[in-house]
């Protein structure tokens, strides 16, 4: 186990520059850090099965120029999709909810595919208590 700090900053270089920073700490019991290619069918990036945890925060980075789509699964019926342009990064919370829900549901697995060709994705899954 151990503490992990996640910090995000979004800034502009306007004449009057603006920026926003936020930071939080997770109590992480285990993590994985992998890089893998994905083709044009959805492939598993990370999941809570066999992780020893029901919850994971996940970072997905597109290391190349080929755009990808990330699919988040909670209940096996309702999927949430996020675009991942070339060289972009997203941070997926441990739980979300969509239509018909009233409380957060744990993210069980995350999959992704390239829109065309192959995308190379780096995935850091932080399994939390």
């Amino acid at each position, binding site marked *: 186990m151990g503490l992990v700090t996640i910090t995000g900053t979004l800034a502009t270089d306007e004449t009057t520059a603006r920026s926003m920073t936020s930071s939080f700490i997770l109590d992480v019991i285990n993590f994985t850090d992998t890089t893998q290619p994905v083709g044009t069918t959805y492939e598993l990036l990370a999941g809570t099965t066999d992780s020893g945890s029901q919850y994971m925060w996940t*970072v997905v980075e597109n290391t190349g120029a080929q755009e990808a789509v990330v699919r988040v699964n909670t209940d096996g019926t309702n999927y949430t999709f996020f675009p991942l342009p070339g060289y972009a990064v997203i941070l997926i919370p441990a739980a979300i909810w969509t239509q018909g829900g009233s409380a957060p549901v744990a993210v069980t697995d995350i999959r992704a595919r390239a829109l065309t060709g192959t995308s190379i994705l780096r995935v850091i899954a932080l399994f939390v208590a």
Partner: protein
Amino acid sequence: MANATLTLKIAGTVNDKTIAYTKTQTVDNVDTVIHRVGKATINSSLNTHVAPAGTQTPIAEQDHDIMLLANIDSRADVDFAITCSAGDLHIILEPGAFFIIQKADAGGNLNLSTTATTTTMVSTTSFDVGRYHLASGAAKFQMFGCYNYAS
């Protein structure tokens, strides 16, 4: 024309193994920036942040090139309800936690579907923000979005 830069850092040690991750992403040609620091309503009611009719208040403009939503409160969870034509996505963030919205090359920021093979994205249409748990006292949040208004 300005640029926007996102920096994501992860640092820590888990089971004697170090994580030291830094990623910087640059979004070119940003001409409009929205930046709002606010307090969400008490008792989990959601405040809608949409463009009033006939105005160009950009908080809910579609197709943000990149956006950061954060809970900057010290104790309350915040519910960010992101609405698009496919429905509502709720992100519950604990104090300090944040969420990143990207934009597809063809446009659109997310999608919700029961079809597992979906690849098309749709645009956001509004952002509702509220304190998640029933309790008195407002919860502070921050939203920072960048986009190219001309595109």
